[in-house]
């Protein structure tokens, strides 16, 4: 394959895109909106997460009963001091629990010190140096302090989720959705404008023409995504670093996501668009079908974390990247088989 010929085709397409303000506007819209949206989400969350925890309230404990090294079950404890014990299925009310384990317990206005809680609800409590499972609901008027684990800070965990999962998904979706805008013009446009016949009579090979078209879509889409990433990162860090005291993004997950997985997803999106273009005969229909391409990509990144198969980690992305490379190889093979002069002029609808 003569790369120079493919590049000539790509440059011609760039010129066409540049001359079409509608394409530029449609293409730029998504990264601009996503950058604004990301900053608007990250900055308020960082602001909330950076706030000092409220002082521990005076619970006015008036301890009347004392339990030490006992196993309590189906019990309601009022004004109790529980030490080195286990409580199963009960209510703990205005009490002091120390070095114990609570399971299926609702705790109200109590001091829990060095306690392990499973499946609990904590209302107006003070939680120190403790640990709770994900199934425990920590009401916002509960104060958490010491080395408590279990996602102790609601806003920090939200900020973490937004910046390391949700916003990264947005980049993946942009990578698969943005090619639809120009790929439809690039392929179906040649067909509807009847520019294919003279183009196909030139000494270009099918592979050079196809590769040129891939470049023509890939370069502007990835450029816009990288510019959006740079602006978003700069804005988020500029606005959140003074609040948090550290740089929020990028980290390894973001770098692998943006520089490895996003380009792969983008090429898969282009290959899917090429296939759709060979099946339809107007730009609008191509774009409508292409919009459906986003769904399987969404599904991969939503089903994964929801089913516990994996959150967005470097390992998870490596698995997805390998899977997408497999899909890409199949699509490129399919398109090369379908993309030949004979089919374009006779069987392309």
């Amino acid at each position, binding site marked *: 394959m003569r790369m120079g010929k493919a590049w000539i085709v790509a440059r011609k397409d760039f010129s066409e895109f540049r001359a079409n303000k509608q394409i530029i506007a449609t293409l730029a819209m998504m990264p601009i909106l996503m950058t604004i949206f990301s900053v608007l989400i990250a900055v308020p969350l960082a602001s909330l997460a950076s706030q000092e925890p409220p002082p521990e309230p005076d619970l006015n404990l008036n301890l009347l009963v004392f339990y030490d090294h006992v196993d309590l079950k189906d019990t309601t404890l009022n004004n109790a001091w529980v030490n080195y014990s286990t409580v199963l299925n009960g209510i703990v009310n205005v009490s002091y629990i120390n070095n114990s384990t609570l399971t299926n317990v609702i705790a109200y206005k109590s001091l829990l010190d060095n306690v392990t809680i499973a499946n609990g609800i904590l209302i107006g409590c003070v939680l120190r140096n403790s640990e709770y499972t994900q199934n425990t609901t920590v009401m916002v008027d509960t104060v958490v302090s010491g080395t408590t684990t279990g996602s102790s800070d609601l806003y920090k965990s939200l900020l973490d989720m937004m910046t390391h999962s949700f916003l990264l998904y947005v980049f993946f979706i942009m990578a698969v959705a943005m090619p639809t805008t120009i790929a439809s013009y690039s392929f179906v446009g040649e067909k509807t404008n*009847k520019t294919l016949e003279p183009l196909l009579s030139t000494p270009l090979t099918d592979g050079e023409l196809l590769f040129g078209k891939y470049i023509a879509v890939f370069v502007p889409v990835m450029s816009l995504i990288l510019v959006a990433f740079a602006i978003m990162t700069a804005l988020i860090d500029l606005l959140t670093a003074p609040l948090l005291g550290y740089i929020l993004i990028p980290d390894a997950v973001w770098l692998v996501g943006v520089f490895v997985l996003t380009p792969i997803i983008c090429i898969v999106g282009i290959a899917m668009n090429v296939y759709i273009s060979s099946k339809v005969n107007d730009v609008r229909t191509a774009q409508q079908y292409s919009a459906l391409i986003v769904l399987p990509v969404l599904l991969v990144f939503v089903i994964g974390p929801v089913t516990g198969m994996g959150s967005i980690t470097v390992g998870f992305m490596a698995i997805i990247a390998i899977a997408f490379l497999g899909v890409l190889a199949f699509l490129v093979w399919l398109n090369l088989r379908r993309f030949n002069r004979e089919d374009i002029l006779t069987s392309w609808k």
Partner: protein
Amino acid sequence: MSGLAIQARGLTRLFGNKAAVQEVSFDVAWGQVFALLGPNGAGKTTTMRMLCTLLRPTAGTAEVGGFDVATQPIKAREQLGLLPENPGLYESLSAERNLRFYGEIYGVPPSKLQGRIEEILKTLEIYDRRGDKIAKFSKGMRQKIAIARALVHEPRILFLDEPTASLDPEASKVVRDFILELKARGGTILLNTHNLYEAQRLSDRVGILNTRLVAFGSPHDLADRMWSRSTEVTLKTPDARFITAIEALGFVKGVKREDGRLIVSMDDPDNDNPRLAEALVRAGAEVVSMKEREHSLEDIYLKLIKGDEAK
């Protein structure tokens, strides 16, 4: 430069079970203008597309510029420039950008390309509008740019599919004159057209296609093959006795009256016309004009196509 510019042997193309082109064979020599004529659906565009390597022949072979269209398609495409039925230009790009793109694809050296673009645009009298977008151009202007595109890499063989279809008379004339100029410079051209006047004016040889090649040759040769030679005589006062007088001449093969003129069939008008004139004058006729009868391409075409359809 040796051999033939285009050589087709038994070229056949089926779409499903339907034959678009059947066993078409012809040659085009270098420097010749060859016109393919035929009714709609006769297979003219399919033949051109096979020669331009856009469609594979179902059977038969073809060579363009000495390269087999099936086994050496890229080499064959390097030899040709194509003007398809639809100009197929990039509307949002300027005329110059359209030409530059094609020049680059064909590998015209950058140092030469700008000069080449300027030269063609000036010849076609559209240099002043080189920076305008194609979307702003009239049909005639677009056709000129499409011709310029087909020529930007100086192809050895030019394929023109209905070059003046849908153009107004003025634009058609510009395009025809340009083709004549290319012909005068020794260009090899294959022309698909419905326009018989255009074909007669521009081409050295014609092929009449109706899925099969019904006839092939120069318009003059075709007429000779289809009709005996004859002389058209206009008399001031046509009279039956003049017919009797010339029927008595040994070289006259037949006489008939047509629109007040006498049509006299003979083998060698160049030799026998003086004797014919003499006989008429001697019989008392006043001869107004006398010329060898010529058959137009339209006569040839209609006779051949009607004859083919009657089969």
